[in-house]
């Protein structure tokens, strides 16, 4: 989307260059000028400069470029997000978690067994706002100190999913033929293998290699990339015969160029939204595995908290409910934030919403304002 927007705008700025500038003296039609002019078949004339060789009369300055960049990536998204409560809530929730993982770690001290009395309920004492575990650990501290590793895991898992998924999807969708058959077969094998059991088996057998959040994130992504690859493949199939791809091919640009400069930017919105969704799935899987006690762990973690609470019988001991509920809320909270973020990002990239917020200068409404308007237009 971004790229074609660019092209459109450039064409709009320099529309003059497509109108052959007719020299003032040529209007007289004197014999001397006739030699310089070639009469075209449609009756028009072409001046000495072919329109394809004239350069724009106004040069784009650095300031223009900066302004355009700001408009495209900062002002328009911001203007869309300001109107959308989902974006606001999503951003606030995710920022709270990010703050918890960065600043919070320094504000809240680490806890140790017997730091306080056993099983203090939530909101009972100011010293332990979220209560304590049966070993007397502060639950707030456990929750806060779980955040950094979860965040790292989430990021590495999401990035790995998106990179591998996009690579496979774009190449198979665009190339076709033998490459498509070979890579699609690999993708299909991975789609067919149920994710969680695969990760459990790999985590058990590769125990020694999985010792930090980054590798764990990559491991969790192994089960997730194939679905994205297939989805992107079908997206690429629809745009591979679009005119802009066809012209790039006609210009004999390399496949690498076409994939990285034409197709991937076109799919960027889709990829970004999927990355946020992948992050959510990675967290779900990671916490599930820690809850099952399948993954080796050394430090606090929401899944480990769930596991400990479950094993301590928190399900049927009302005095320990808070121990189970806090990590449950922590996971669902970040997932909600990520979902809202994905939904609002979808809007940021939606060309119809974008056009409404873009600073076009003339203030004219080119696009129907809302979905309702669009429907009205169709029902006329």
């Amino acid at each position, binding site marked *: 989307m971004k790229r074609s927007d660019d092209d459109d705008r450039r064409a709009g700025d320099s529309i003059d260059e497509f109108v052959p500038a007719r020299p003032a003296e040529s209007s007289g039609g004197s014999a001397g000028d006739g030699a310089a002019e070639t009469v075209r078949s449609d009756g028009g004339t072409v001046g000495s400069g072919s329109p394809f060789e004239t350069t724009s009369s106004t040069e784009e300055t650095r300031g223009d470029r900066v302004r355009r960049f700001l408009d495209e990536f900062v002002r328009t998204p911001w203007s869309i997000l300001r109107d959308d409560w989902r974006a606001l809530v999503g951003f606030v929730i995710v920022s709270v978690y990010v703050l918890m993982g960065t600043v919070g770690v320094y504000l809240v001290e680490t806890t140790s067994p017997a730091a306080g009395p056993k099983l203090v309920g939530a909101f009972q004492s100011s010293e332990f706002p979220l209560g304590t575990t049966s070993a007397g650990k502060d639950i707030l501290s456990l929750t806060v100190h779980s955040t950094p590793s979860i965040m790292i895991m989430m990021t590495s898992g999401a990035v790995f999913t998106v990179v591998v998924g996009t690579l496979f999807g774009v190449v198979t969708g665009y190339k076709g033929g033998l490459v498509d058959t070979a890579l699609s077969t690999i993708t*299909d094998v991975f789609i067919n293998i149920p994710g969680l*059991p695969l990760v459990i088996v790999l985590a058990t057998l590769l125990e020694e290699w999985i010792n930090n959040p980054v590798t764990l994130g990559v491991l969790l992504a192994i089960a997730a990339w194939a679905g994205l690859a297939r989805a992107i493949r079908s997206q690429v199939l629809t745009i591979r015969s679009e005119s802009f791809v066809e012209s790039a091919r006609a210009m004999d640009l390399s496949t690498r160029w076409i994939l990285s400069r034409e197709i991937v930017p076109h799919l960027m919105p889709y990829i970004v939204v999927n990355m946020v969704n992948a992050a959510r799935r990675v967290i779900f899987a990671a916490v599930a595995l820690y809850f099952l006690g*399948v993954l080796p762990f050394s430090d606090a973690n929401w899944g480990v908290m769930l596991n400990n609470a479950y094993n301590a019988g928190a399900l049927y001991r009302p005095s320990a409910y808070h121990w*189970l509920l806090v990590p449950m809320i922590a996971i669902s909270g970040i997932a909600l934030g990520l979902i809202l973020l994905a939904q609002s990002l979808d809007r940021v990239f939606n060309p119809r919403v974008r056009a409404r917020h873009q600073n076009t200068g003339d203030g004219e409404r080119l696009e129907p304002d809302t979905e309702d308007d669009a429907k009205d237009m*169709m029902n006329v």
Partner: protein
Amino acid sequence: MNWKIRRIGQAVFTVLAVLTLSFVMIRMMPGNPVDAFVARVGPQLENPQEAYERAETYMNINPQEPMHIAYVNYMADMIQGDMGRSMSQNAPVAAIMAEAIPWTLFVMSWAVFLGFAVGISLGALMAYWEGSKFDSALTGYATTITSIPFYVLALFLLMTLGYQLGWFPTGGRRPEGVAVGFNLPFMMGIIYHATLPVLSMFVASGAASLTMRGNSVRVLGEDYLRVARLRGLSDRTIAIRYVARNAILPMYTGLMIAIGTMFGGAVVLEEIFSYRGMGYYMIQAVRARDYPLMMGTFTVITIAVVIALLIADLTYGKIDPRAGSEDREAF
């Protein structure tokens, strides 16, 4: 026809690839289970040779054989349904699996079916009353429920409906003291025991309803729908033959992927509800480092998903006549 044969071939290939992968992991990785087993058991036995024989009984792999022969033997054993012997349960893996599979299939097929049925109906209603209070309330509900992992919902349901209110059993898969067979109390009993696990999977209905809503709204704006109205077709025909059909079709792929996710989810769910299905045994095997049982459950769950997806793919052509033909130019 050609396409169907290729699709079946692909399913067979997937199963073989998974079996190969499991061979590589238990035999070829450094510090693999087979070597570890021999190193642990060997010194305890009077005859060290016996350790190799035991490895063969349990894991279908004789460490003394060269790699390629061991591989061929392993694959042959697995394909014939001999998945070795479980160390912790002290029974053939195949026998444990045969007993556990129906229970997992029972719970998961209900979960998939009900989740999608509810999701599709809600989505259709949301699209029908698009923009109303009902729509925004349900959209909010669907978004919230999607953000809850199914195991968190499972724990919550178990805590409230299971322990606090005592409405549902907190574990197990069938009623005590009832004759096993096709009698009403037993049937009701197993449905009763499966209720909470199935309800936990309802989170999937949230995402399904949002997709269905989006698809229906898109279809409602299509030109062919206006033509259908102009032809004077009844609302009922339009809703079922035009809107529902075209909105559900694109979700078929999502359903296929959901099958895989749900069978994977069975591992966590069965552990929480102590529901003795395949997933339950898998976790028991992981805890006991019982590699034959672990790989056996993994293979069986994978084969179940492969077959489910194969059936889904082969029947897709029946509902969507456009599917199946994919001739493209390669460049």
